[in-house]
């Protein structure tokens, strides 16, 4: 044992000459905060602008493989999820902060998993450093060195598409330290933030055209792969299920409130539209260093990205928030609702004559 001591000292001296020593850590002295994640469409409480120094923000996500019902007919998906929800929880940090994620793959799961953060630099977004077998956990830290809404997703070699399409994606939002701004640099605020994760699903069917139900994850793989390769989704859903954001699950707001809609699609292009409303300020690509676009009717979210739209509600009622490919919205499920309470504004809209017989003039 004694014999090794000089060698250890030597290596310590050698390391002290490099800029990033193993003994000193770049995050030494930074504040460390633990954040509890919440299930979408909610987003955990966060500051919109911060005067604090960069922090290390610690998150913990447990991967859950489970069967989930994805429509009103009881159709099931052998799902894989970050923290049990589709999409996984939205994480919020500020530019310059460090994201430190503990990724847990419980022994009850049957597959290895990992995570690729589109916001992270190197190692395939962290995927190379986070491969965890059932019964393992891993901790990854990366610097959030650019602002924006970014997708994260599972990316195990050879099975990326399946894991992502079975539910494993979510959003990391990196806010500018001084908050969101319009193109003139004026600050923009929101009263509520909602996160919407859109999924195109490919549920295998039997010979009679009925959706198949699988006893376990592994047995669903081959058929799911074939269904995926058709590129024709059987369902296109927000937050894991047809109707997840309707009825009891509808989003709410009040007239005068400003809402930030974060919308991710890890696989396929989509085009959100708020029926009866607009996007006052929209970061289509989600990257806040680019000036937002004003007064959009529909915005385009590229597959493999997350975007953000800010809107102040001006009129009460029930709004539909849809993918404006209307086949996907009305037939396949990509629709949610926003219930908005408040006073009606006759100046903005008024029914001058109720439907009735056509008169001569």
């Amino acid at each position, binding site marked *: 044992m004694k014999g090794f001591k000089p060698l250890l000292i030597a290596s310590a001296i050698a390391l002290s000459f490099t800029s990033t020593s193993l003994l000193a850590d770049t995050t030494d002295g930074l504040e460390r905060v633990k954040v509890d994640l919440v299930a979408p469409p909610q987003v955990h409480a966060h500051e919109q602008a911060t005067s604090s120094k960069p922090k290390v923000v610690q998150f913990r996500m447990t991967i859950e493989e489970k069967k989930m019902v994805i429509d*009103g007919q009881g159709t099931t998906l052998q799902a894989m999820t970050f923290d049990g929800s589709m999409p996984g929880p939205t994480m919020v940090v500020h530019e310059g902060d460090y994201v430190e994620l503990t990724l847990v793959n419980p022994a009850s799961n049957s597959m290895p998993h990992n995570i690729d953060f589109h916001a992270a630099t190197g190692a395939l977004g962290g995927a190379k450093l986070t491969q965890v077998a059932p019964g393992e956990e891993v901790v990854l830290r990366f610097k959030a060195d650019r602002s924006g809404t970014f997708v994260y997703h599972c990316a195990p070699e050879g099975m990326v598409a399946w894991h992502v399409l079975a539910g494993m994606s979510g959003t990391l939002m990196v806010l500018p330290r001084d908050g969101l701004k319009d193109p003139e640099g004026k600050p923009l605020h929101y009263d509520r933030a909602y996160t919407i994760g859109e999924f195109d699903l490919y549920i295998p069917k039997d010979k*009679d*055209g009925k959706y198949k139900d699988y006893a376990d994850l592994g047995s669903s793989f081959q058929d799911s792969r074939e269904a995926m390769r058709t590129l024709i989704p059987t369902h296109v859903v927000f937050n894991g299920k047809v109707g997840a954001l*309707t*009825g*009891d699950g*509808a989003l709410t707001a009040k007239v005068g409130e400003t809402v930030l809609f974060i919308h991710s699609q890890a696989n396929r292009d989509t085009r959100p539209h708020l*029926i009866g409303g607009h996007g006052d300020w929209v970061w289509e690509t989600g990257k806040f260093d680019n000036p937002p676009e004003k007064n959009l009717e529909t915005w385009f979210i590229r597959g493999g990205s997350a975007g953000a739209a800010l809107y102040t509600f001006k*009129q*009460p*009622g*029930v709004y*539909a928030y*849809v993918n404006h490919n*209307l086949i996907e*919205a*009305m*037939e396949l499920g*990509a*629709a949610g*609702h926003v*219930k*908005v*309470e*408040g*006073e*009606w504004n*006759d100046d903005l809209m008024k*029914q001058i004559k109720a*439907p*009735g*017989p056509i008169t001569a003039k």
Partner: protein
Amino acid sequence: MRALLVGAMLLGGCMQTSGIDESDWVRIAAGTARYQAADASGATFEQHSDGFAIMRRQVSQAEYAACVAANACLPLDGDLREASAADLAAVGVSWMDASAYAQWLTQRTGVVHRLPTYAEWVLAAGEAFQDIQAEVFDDARNPAQRWLAEYDRESRRKPLDPRPRAFGSQGSNANGLLDVAGNVWEWTDSCFGKGDFCGIRIAAGQHPSGLSDFVRDPISGACSVGVPPSNLGFRLVRE
């Protein structure tokens, strides 16, 4: 002999001119139906009827299949195309299909058969009919209050198991009608809305549903919410 008999029935031959068996009809006495407008506009309707006969059960798969075999009704979609059970309701039928069946039965029997009006269905359904609760809003100038209330009401409706169930297994009402307001909604002749144009009819059941007359399998879309009818079927009335 049996094959011949079945063949004659399928062809709508003279062996069964009476159509639906007399024991399958229920007499509803004269009365006045009262109900809220199906579109939840807040309007209330009152309609008097002098009485009529209505089928105790819904039209069966076997009965509809006979109409198809006679080339008087259109075949149904998917698996329902082959459906021919005598103890299950014909479902997956549009208002047009139901009307075609009524017309065929009328021609075959010489007795006018037709779909009930919504008011007649309300009378026949009796205690099984649950009207929409009238709601009063304090600010008539804010239409959104009503929209939000309608939305919440529709959101509370839960889906029923749509799988077919034998006649009578969903109960009978005081008038002796079977399976009223169960998992099969029944087409009526009444228009959803007012005016001369009538492309949308009321399907009666646990809640009234306005549906285009060609719809066989209702879905709820992004602009509507809540639960569409589980199945669409029908029963007929005679004067």
